[in-house]
């Protein structure tokens, strides 16, 4: 990776300023290197708190907001728990386009819209969820308008309004690490508080995962706090996970590639707005194919073809959705993937900045297509294969858009729509269900599992394991331009991390405890991505196999579902497009 701007080391004065700031902070270790693993928290003195509710909502983004509000409005007692802050973590602060289907403005019917998405997605979308998006998005936009969402650039306050009006409690900066199932029914969840040495147990009749998707903590996309936490917790208690072979194709720029704000600042600073029907076939992987063949950074020109037309082959786009190359003088290269488009194009005039720089692929490495990876739904209300456990938004593998970005602005709107529907469904269930009593022995073993990294005197730091995982998974010849030999090689490495290193992850403090859990979740997600990518012996949408470059409709009009077998091993099974899981 090259950059025209060198990365300066901190000056001595800056360095001393950091040191000075940190000396007064006894609970926090040094910022880098071995010293970060010096124990700071005594696991034997960690306290616990216990909370009871009807509906537990995990996650405080767009899906979590609507899940909590609509579950409350359906009559349930609701508790929200978030690893970050309401409206200020995950991808929600970054998403500013909200799709609405306004029948008074559209020339297409909802049927025609759904069919158009289906053609772009090569059948990979679930039309039930695509239609649901179109039917409900306008109502959700109206809710958001009432709360002031479209009048701000930072959405915490707009999100707080409906929560405060309804007196729905929110526990922020609490990381949930375990879903609790007993008697084949969801019974609650447990985790820990980042700001205190405290284990948190939440007992609930139903649980809604609004935990977003995740990546491998890549540089250049604001997804470093998302590590598939919901999917992995759910997988461990028997839920099915889907959509792992798809790839998000967002890029960053060659100047300061790790700086999300500088490369995507327009997205953070913009007031949210709505948009109507605009169906694309935004691959992302096509530009990554060019980067694989020629190296980064990418010059301008249409996806898959260099300016002089040297590069052919690679992923294909249906003719109906081909986009014309930009004319000379157009701003910037075409967007790489993404319902939000690529990084903002070059401004006209003014000093050159990061946004004028060439694009670099792989910024969102580890993330699948929005709404297409996560828990397998068994119905259109976001119920999973675990009774009482629901998911919504990027935590639900609804395949609303399919294995490709299709409708602009649908990611944010889809989270709102699915959150609201799952909220009402989880409330309905809670009203007719008794709280499942969790045996104390089960809670004790969960508590010990949570605290284990704090107790270890020797082992592996999560920062190192993450760095190794990034080295295995992020190369374009593993994650994006796939082939059997490299997928198998990467899988051997990931299995080593899973079996040998995860059991020895250690943490010095609550921050590192969070990193340890996130690292563990990323390793299992990597295994899912590799196994699903090996299994899908074709190329379709954002999944591209160099050794199987054609779309294979005879064998692959199917999604891949991943679940834990009776012996604990990872199992994969096909689910035909347009069908619900057989286990439902």
């Amino acid at each position, binding site marked *: 990776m090259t950059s025209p701007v060198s990365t300066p080391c901190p000056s001595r004065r800056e360095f001393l300023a950091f040191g000075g700031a940190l000396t007064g902070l006894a609970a926090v270790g040094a*910022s880098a290197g071995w010293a970060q693993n010096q124990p700071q928290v005594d696991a034997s003195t960690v306290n616990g708190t216990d909370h009871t509710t009807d509906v537990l909502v995990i996650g405080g983004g767009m899906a979590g907001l609507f899940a909590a509000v609509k579950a409350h409005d359906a009559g349930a007692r609701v508790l929200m728990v978030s690893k970050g802050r309401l409206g200020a973590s995950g991808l929600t602060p970054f998403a500013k386009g909200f799709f609405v289907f306004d029948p008074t403005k559209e020339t297409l019917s909802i049927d025609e819209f759904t069919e158009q998405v289906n053609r772009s997605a090569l059948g990979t979308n679930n039309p039930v969820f695509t239609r649901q998006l179109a039917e409900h998005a306008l109502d959700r936009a109206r809710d958001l308008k009432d709360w002031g969402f479209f009048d701000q650039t930072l959405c915490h306050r707009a999100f707080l309004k409906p929560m405060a009006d309804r007196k729905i409690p929110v526990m922020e900066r609490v990381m949930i690490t375990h879903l609790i199932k007993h008697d084949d029914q969801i019974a609650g969840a447990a985790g820990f508080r980042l700001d205190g040495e405290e284990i948190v147990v939440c007992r609930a009749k139903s649980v809604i995962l609004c935990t977003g998707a995740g990546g491998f903590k890549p540089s250049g996309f604001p997804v470093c706090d998302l590590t598939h936490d919901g999917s992995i917790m759910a997988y461990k208690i028997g839920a099915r996970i889907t959509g792992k072979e798809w790839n998000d194709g967002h890029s960053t720029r060659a100047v300061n590639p790790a700086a999300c704000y500088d490369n995507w600042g327009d997205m953070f600073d913009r007031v949210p707005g709505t948009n109507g029907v605009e169906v694309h076939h935004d691959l992302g992987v096509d530009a990554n194919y060019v980067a694989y063949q020629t190296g980064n950074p990418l010059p301008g020109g249409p996806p898959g073809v260099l300016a002089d037309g040297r590069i052919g082959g690679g992923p294909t786009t249906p003719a109906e959705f081909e986009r014309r190359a930009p004319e000379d003088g157009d701003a910037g290269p075409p967007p790489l993937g993404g319902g939000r488009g690529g990084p903002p194009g070059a401004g006209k005039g003014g000093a050159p900045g990061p946004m004028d720089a060439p694009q670099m692929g792989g910024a969102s490495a580890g993330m699948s297509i929005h709404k297409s990876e996560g828990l397998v739904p068994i119905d259109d209300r976001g119920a999973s294969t675990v009774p009482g456990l629901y998911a919504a938004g990027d935590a639900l593998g609804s395949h609303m858009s399919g294995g490709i970005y299709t409708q602009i602005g649908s990611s944010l709107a889809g989270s709102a729509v699915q959150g609201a529907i799952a909220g009402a469904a989880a409330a309905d269930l809670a009203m007719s269900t008794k709280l499942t009593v969790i045996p104390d022995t089960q809670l004790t073993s969960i508590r010990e599992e949570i605290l284990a990294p704090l107790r270890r005197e020797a082992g592996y730091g999560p920062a190192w394991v993450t760095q190794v995982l990034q080295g295995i998974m992020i190369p374009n010849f593993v994650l994006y331009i796939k082939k059997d030999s490299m997928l198998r090689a990467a899988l051997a490495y990931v299995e080593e991390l899973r079996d040998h290193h995860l059991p020895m992850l250690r943490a010095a403090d609550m921050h590192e405890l969070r990193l340890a859990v996130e690292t563990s979740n990323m390793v299992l997600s990597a295994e899912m991505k590799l196994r699903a990518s090996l299994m899908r012996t074709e190329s379709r949408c954002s999944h591209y196999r160099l050794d199987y470059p054609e779309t294979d409709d005879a064998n692959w009009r199917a999604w891949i579902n991943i679940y834990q077998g009776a012996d604990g091993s990872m199992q994969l099974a096909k689910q035909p497009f347009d069908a619900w899981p057989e286990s439902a």
Partner: protein
Amino acid sequence: MTIKSINGCIGCGECVKSCPCDVIRLDPSTGKAVIAYPADCQICHLCRMYCPVDAIEISPDKTIPVIVAWG
């Protein structure tokens, strides 16, 4: 270095809460925000945007911390 400096902090904790990656903490002895885990900063500027007194300065540069082999 990601978050470059915090000057003029009033100790309100907005930045601590709004950092998605848990980079900032309040120093228990001074009550002021400090850059506790700079390696985990994703340079998203949410802390700066939520700060009510514009105390936070951020650089677009990111340096990878040294991690000891087999750490």
